[in-house]
């Protein structure tokens, strides 16, 4: 069974800031066209400007042998990565990746072929290969494609393509310096700056024809501490669909100091205890737990295969009354925000579990059809090299009523988890694991000594029934989710308490 992973990092004040930028939505279309107009280098002629008639021809070709649905996906991605380690630039990377794929769905079958040359000839050939699965299928007449509009939840003030590389380098140097300045026990900083502009063209046999571009910034600072006895590698990440103004909202120094703080705090860590105990998870990052333990099992592909943990449980009580879980691809500027998914379905706010009752699954076109359910806008793909599958966007436990300080003070003994390295889940059995990055003992309702990276394990159904306190302090973190292919996501939660998780410490 494929395992799914998210690596995650705390991001304070994430929600608040993004909500502010949300006020700029009205200005988006103009800004987007400005972005489009400043494509770099040779890419204006990369084939992304393929006309409607050609796209229609390819769709028609794809459905020639039969099939229920076909789409053409063109993609162009310009990316930059600059890495500094030990205060030396380790690498500067500039990449252009482009290509296109043709997909045919016939019954439960999917045929797919892609090419990195976006030409009519190559795509007609891909259409033929993709249609292999459809030789006995239904005949479908494609709807003529016409420009489709879709609201945008991404605003850009300083387009990435107008930013000189010197500015990027300056951001990295500032973060490196701030890590080193934090404490003499900091041995090294690793700063990883990434940005990209991903252009998409989607044309489908249902008549959808969408073009857009999404900028994405991803900034990671790691800090390693060493006091001669022990070492700890700490990490902080931020990411937005945004222009370069992201670094005005969250300065590189803030990111750096958060990483350095964790690196120093954990030098004092003692061995963690082993066995079943209560766990309080701080708001923000911990959303990775619901992302893994509950989110993946709520993706509709395994439900359609009738093997998922939640198979047959729609409308039933599956979790505590205080547990509400949402996936929302429209949170302004958030890392998991998509405007529309990679199949052209508009992004939505989807309530998955409400007050403990299972309300819905996250679908793509195929699983929605198989389950006779609504399309939720979760059909995502890493690139043109992959077919779309149901994926999360921004997934979170919705805020509750408890005060975070009350949750802690009412917990006699247990573990307070401040950040996780990440985790994985088996979506069929719902069995998950997470590794703590920064955690503390709880003794008599107070956070006490730090403890070394312990693993938390359990099963999805147990955990959502055992959450007995949900705070009012919803916050988010960012990560990369892997499910055979990567997707950028955010995950969030308020402070929550989970009764009885198995903690893998080395102290008996």
């Amino acid at each position: 069974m494929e395992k799914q992973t998210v690596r995650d990092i705390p991001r304070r004040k994430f929600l608040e800031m993004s909500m502010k930028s949300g006020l700029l939505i009205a200005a988006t279309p103009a800004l987007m066209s400005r972005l489009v107009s400043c494509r770099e280098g040779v890419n204006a002629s990369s084939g992304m400007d393929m006309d409607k008639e050609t796209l229609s021809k390819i769709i028609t070709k794809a459905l020639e042998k039969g099939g229920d649905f076909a789409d053409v996906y063109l993609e162009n991605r310009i990316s930059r990565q600059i890495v500094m380690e030990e205060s030396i630039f380790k690498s500067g990377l500039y990449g252009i990746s482009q290509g296109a794929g043709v997909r045919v769905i016939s019954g439960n079958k999917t045929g797919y072929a892609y090419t990195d040359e976006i030409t009519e000839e190559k795509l007609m050939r891909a259409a033929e290969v993709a249609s292999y699965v459809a030789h006995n299928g239904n005949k479908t007449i494609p709807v003529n494609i016409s420009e489709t509009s879709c609201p945008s939840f991404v605003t850009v003030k300083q387009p990435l393509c107008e930013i000189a590389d010197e500015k990027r380098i300056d951001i990295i140097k500032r973060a490196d310096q701030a890590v080193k300045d934090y404490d003499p026990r900091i041995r090294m900083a690793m700063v990883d700056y990434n940005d990209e502009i991903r252009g998409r063209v989607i044309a489908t046999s249902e008549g959808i024809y969408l073009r857009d571009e999404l900028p994405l910034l991803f900034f990671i600072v790691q800090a390693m501490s060493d006091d001669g006895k022990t070492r700890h590698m700490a990490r902080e990440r931020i990411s937005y669909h945004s222009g370069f103004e992201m670094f005005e909202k969250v300065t590189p120094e803030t990111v750096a100091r958060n990483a350095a703080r964790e690196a120093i705090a954990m030098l004092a860590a003692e061995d963690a205890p082993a066995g079943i105990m209560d766990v309080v998870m701080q708001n923000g990052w911990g959303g990775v737990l619901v992302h893994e333990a509950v989110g993946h099992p709520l993706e509709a592909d395994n439900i359609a295969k009738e093997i998922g943990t939640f198979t047959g449980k729609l409308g039933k009580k599956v979790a505590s009354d205080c547990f509400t879980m949402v996936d929302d691809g429209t949170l302004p500027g958030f890392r998991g925000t998509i405007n529309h998914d990679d199949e052209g379905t508009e992004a939505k706010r989807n309530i998955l579990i409400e007050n403990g009752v299972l309300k819905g699954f996250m679908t793509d076109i195929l699983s929605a059809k198989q389950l006779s359910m609504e399309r939720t806008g979760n059909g995502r793909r890493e690139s043109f090299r992959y077919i779309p599958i149901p994926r999360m966007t921004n997934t979170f436990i919705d805020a509750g009523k408890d005060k975070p300080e009350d949750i802690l003070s009412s917990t006699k003994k247990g573990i307070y988890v401040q950040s996780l390295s990440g985790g994985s889940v088996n979506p069929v059995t719902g069995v998950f694991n997470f590794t703590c990055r920064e955690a503390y003992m709880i003794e008599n309702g107070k956070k006490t000594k730090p403890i070394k990276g312990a693993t938390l394990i359990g099963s999805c159904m147990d955990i959502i029934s055992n959450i007995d306190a949900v705070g009012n302090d919803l916050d988010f973190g960012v990560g990369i989710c892997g499910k055979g292919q990567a997707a950028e996501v955010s995950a969030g939660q308020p402070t929550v308490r989970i009764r009885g998780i198995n903690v893998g410490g080395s102290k008996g």
Partner: protein
Amino acid sequence: MDYIELAEKLVKKSISLGADAAEVFLETNRNLSIGVLKSEIETIEEASSHGAGFRVFVGNKMGFSHCNDLSDRSLEDTVSRAIAFAKLSSPDENNVLTDDIGVTAAKDLYDKSIAAEPMEKKIRMALDLEKLAMKDPRITKSAGAGYGEGESEVFIANSNGILKSYKSSGCSLGVSVVAEKGDQKNTGSEYCSRVFFKDLVSLEGIAALASQRAWELLDPVMINTQKASVLFDPDVARSLLGGIITAVNGERVLQGASFLKDHLNKQFASSLLSITDDGTKQKSLGSAPFDGEGVPTMKNILVQNGILKSFIYNTKTAKRAGVRSTGNASRGGFSSLPGIGTHNIYLEPGKHTGKEIIAATKKGLLLKEVTGYGIDAVSGNFSGGASGFWILNGEIAFPVKGVTIAGKAFDILNGIDMMGNDIDMNRTFAAPIFRVAEMQIGGK
């Protein structure tokens, strides 16, 4: 397209555009993947692709760029981007390219017959595999079966006169099934990957293992939190040894980010532990005549009888450490810079059969699955989720699920007191079963 000629031309082009030294990495790929579910085709994906990566130096400042549009205009633009990036970078005297013109005689890395086998046969194999894995009545559902294949050709040229290429292939078959009993649910999967199509093992063998893994852990018993022996099955050896591989990465060592940084030529583990990395092995998916930057691959002994013998390096980190590259530059394709990685890594087998090790264990946990990140290569701490079988008085007593295991890497590695003698060398990460005398286990 003549890629060899193109690679040479692009090195010259880089120099004429202002680079003092340059490396061009070209790659072509062809892939096919077939997925089946419930005796029907689920997906068929097919593609071929190519791309170019440029590592250029201006003085000793480095820049990198890549593209998959191999038109003259795009290539020239991409090279220029790398040069511009290099100029902004910081100087590093270790930024050098290899001048080693050697290649290793790693034989039989490419099977041209894979592509010639008919599609229908490959689909049939996946369908049959799924059917066979569903045969046992305890297996209630299929999570799918699949066949995949790929071929690639790599070309490396640099301004030190290196010009090398090689072709490789691989194919694989796998299946995943579910066993259910009451409210219990368990998955089991198995796959087989080979360089040559005809070397794929029997469908029956793959199916039987996947099926057994799904049902054998039904009806588990929860054990108490305690210390006991822990037996690592070959399938889970990686959970413990993956951290060692990261910790012997020469760059991590130089950065001080490895728990093994001060242990070269010292005994840090049980004398039963010997680890070798071999990039030259015939017919192996991890082998290559040269590494990701053109240095000939080698067979490197990393750990011998518990003594750390060598770290692994690419050209840049070797220069910094004042040693020679060990041929361990790894590359995730044309779009990535050379990092450091292993080829075919294996544990030297010991004397005991698996049965003997179980029989010699009074109280212990035979691990079948370990989840989590394994050993933290920086701090040397280990913690993971685990399932497997409880051993009592030398016999398997009952299945165990939902427990944890943890400890410090040095304690665990020194605690290895029995090493098995049965090893499947077809895996790029091969280990026999071995036993750690005592570890902390977390249960109820």
